């Protein structure tokens, strides 16, 4: 069947707009700051068979593997999905989930008694029980330590909420007052999404709509194949590393071989280390999401982000490995770590196929989470987003100064610290960009930040210190790596301590002092424009010393001007020293 290309584009954009409207409903009505401030949720739409047709809202690590959830739903409720049904699920082993805190609400959309779509919202809940408040239990060694596991369940049957199930869900959260409103916000978003999808189908007619859904998947497939065909055929290797398993120091590798053939792309994780004791194992849905994120960001950014784009992608993730663990391995950390490491490994491999298009490494977001009770007795969980890291550089652009996570491609928003001071018992002492932390390059890595916060109540701190000691973000194409991170905790009721990479600590009111990672640089620093180096020194991102030593740029007049003659000398000298 052939399609009018204009109508095809209109349908894709309408669907994208619908997911964004669903996102707006969630953003405006949710109760938890993790949604209303940080946007840690994503709305997407699948066709009646569970293929993601639109995922314009939110963050890629949520939605890329969204099809797994809906296909699990369809498998379990085969032939029993009815108009007015809304489902809920989370479990990565049993229900196509990515990790336990991300609950999916999926509303079946019917038209003339035919199942045509699912309107879905995947959202990271404030608390789901388990061994630590706030969903991240760094001491977990089994998924059972991580919170309540949800198989695919019918939460709303023919329009009415299952009250017993509802009470079960609320009872398993430390923050039921938030969960109740948040779940309703999710259901509101899928309700609005369903209405709009139904309206679209009314306009286009049911047969035509279903055909268009198929058409936009086909189009993305063709377009992706064409982008891949521009790369030289071959097998390209990439890898990235952890320096701990959440308990002990050890080197753990993610290894990937990306093979470009005439038929498409094979992404093979054979050789990746076995699943680990701690919660940094990646569910299969998350591994797919991370690979999709790496591919879609490396190739044509205008390609529609639907599941059709990845039909020509074959992913091999050996069972029992870090990227496809067997139950009951814990895995809540996976959307971040190794979500980011999988993307980095794929980027490294793809960069070998086309070095100029290499993406430098992004800083790991290794800020802790604090949980406790406010002075009036309410439970709170605060993510220290303001301690996020710098992004990696690409050809033509410096890395983002600070970013909400490679896994989110900046879809996660770093909330306003002044609002956080209103919401939580904290005072922010410092939030400023680092000096000499972004990897030097023709395009510089993002500097990351210095972040200091005083927590005025006793708290439980949950640490996730990735990239604290080793494995700084890669520099590429001649660029330098970014800086590693540091974190120090100074409790008022005890001695200051260096937190473990992962773990829980209880302290009295305390002060956290952290420096986040800088991103990697792209290209030779000696090729960076002299004026850009001057601007960096004046902005405090690069020191006068580093300007001369790394970039070969010598400044004059108290760092207000460039000494062009000396700069030429210095750059020549540095080039000669390299040989």
């Amino acid at each position, binding site marked *: 069947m052939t399609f009018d290309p204009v109508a095809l584009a209109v349908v894709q954009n309408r669907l994208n707009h619908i997911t964004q409207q669903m996102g707006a*409903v969630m953003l*405006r*009505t*949710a*109760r*938890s700051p993790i949604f*209303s*401030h940080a946007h840690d949720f994503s709305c997407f739409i699948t066709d009646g068979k569970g293929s993601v047709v639109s995922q314009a809202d939110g963050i890629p690590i949520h939605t890329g593997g969204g099809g797994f959830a809906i296909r699990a739903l369809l498998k379990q409720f085969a032939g029993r999905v009815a108009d007015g049904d809304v489902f809920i699920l989370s479990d990565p082993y049993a229900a196509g989930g990515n990790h336990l805190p991300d609950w999916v609400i999926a509303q079946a959309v019917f038209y003339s008694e035919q199942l045509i779509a699912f309107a879905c919202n995947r959202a990271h809940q404030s608390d789901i029980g388990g061994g630590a408040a706030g969903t991240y239990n760094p001491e977990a060694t089994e998924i059972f330590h991580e919170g309540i596991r949800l198989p695919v369940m019918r939460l709303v049957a023919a329009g009415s909420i299952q009250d017993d199930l509802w009470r079960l869900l609320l009872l398993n959260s430390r923050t039921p*007052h*938030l969960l*109740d*409103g948040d779940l*309703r*916000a999710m*259901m*509101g*978003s*899928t*309700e*609005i999404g369903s*209405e709009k999808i139904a309206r679209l189908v009314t306009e286009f007619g049911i047969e035509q709509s279903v055909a268009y859904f198929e058409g936009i998947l086909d189009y993305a497939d063709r377009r992706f194949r064409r982008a891949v065909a521009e790369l030289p055929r071959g097998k390209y290797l990439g890898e990235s590393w952890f320096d701990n398993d959440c308990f002990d120091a050890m080197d753990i590798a993610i290894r990937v071989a990306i093979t470009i053939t005439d038929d498409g792309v094979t992404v093979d994780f054979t050789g990746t280390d076995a699943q680990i004791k701690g919660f940094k194992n990646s569910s299969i849905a998350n591994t797919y999401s991370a690979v999709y994120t790496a591919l879609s960001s490396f190739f044509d950014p205008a390609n529609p982000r639907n599941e059709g784009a990845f039909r020509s992608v074959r992913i091999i993730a050996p069972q029992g490995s870090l990227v496809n663990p067997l139950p009951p391995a814990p895995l809540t950390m996976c959307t971040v770590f190794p979500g980011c490491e999988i993307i980095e490994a794929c980027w490294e491999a793809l960069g070998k196929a086309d070095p100029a298009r290499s993406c430098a490494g992004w800083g790991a977001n290794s800020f802790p989470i604090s949980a406790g009770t406010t002075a009036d007795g309410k439970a709170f969980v605060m993510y220290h987003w303001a301690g996020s890291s710098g992004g990696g550089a690409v050809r033509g652009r410096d890395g983002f100064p600070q970013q909400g996570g490679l896994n989110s491609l900046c879809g996660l928003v770093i909330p306003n610290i002044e609002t956080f001071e209103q919401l939580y018992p904290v005072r922010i002492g410092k939030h400023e960009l680092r000096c000499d932390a972004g990897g030097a390059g023709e395009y510089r890595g993002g500097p990351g930040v210095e972040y200091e916060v005083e927590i005025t109540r006793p708290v439980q701190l949950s640490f996730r210190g990735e990239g604290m000691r080793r494995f700084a973000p890669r520099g590429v194409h001649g660029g330098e790596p970014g800086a590693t991170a540091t974190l120090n905790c100074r409790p008022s009721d005890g001695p200051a301590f260096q937190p473990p990479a992962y773990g829980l600590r209880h302290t009295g009111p305390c002060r956290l002092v952290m420096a986040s990672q800088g991103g990697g640089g792209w290209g030779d620093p000696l090729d960076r424009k002299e004026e850009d180096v001057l*601007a960096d020194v*004046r902005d405090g991102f690069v020191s006068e010393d580093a300007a001369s030593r790394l970039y070969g740029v010598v400044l004059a007049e*108290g760092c*207000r001007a460039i000494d062009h003659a000396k700069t030429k000398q210095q750059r020549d000298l540095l080039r000669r020293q390299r040989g």
Partner: protein
Amino acid sequence: MDLHYVGQQWDVRVAVEAPPDKQTLRAAFERQYARLYGHYQPDGIIELTKLRVVGFGLLPALGELPPAGEPTPPEEPAPLGAGAAVCSALRGLSGSRAQSKSARQPEPYERRRVYLGRSGGWSMTDIYRGEDLRPGHVCAGPLVVEEATTTLFIGPHDVLQVDASGNFAIDLADGEAVS
């Protein structure tokens, strides 16, 4: 009335004719909320965040504020009716700037190091309190004006003028005037 469920960041506005009872108000809120967002929360705790009142009435013409250093003219008798509160509120807003005593030329209350961009670098700069600036005052930048809710920066070649109503008009050296 602007209402939301406890914990939310955004309000839903509901029009109310007379002082409503709680049930009527809740029903009106839930109806509007469901229309916008596809759901509502039965028995959810609703917070009133803003009460908006619209009043109609005739106000006396707004006179120009006296220039710097001159006393404020005596208040006109307040008009009767709904406009009275609004009128005296208006006068209260503008009065603070006009009523306090001030010299012909305003004095900066301190001088601080301010970064004036790449060309200007760090430089000692006059800092004024907004309440010290009166109609008719003209000050050449660079300077900073501190108000309770905002801070204004007047660039090195810009000129600040306080107009008759107490507004700050800034003539930009390389662009259009803003106020």
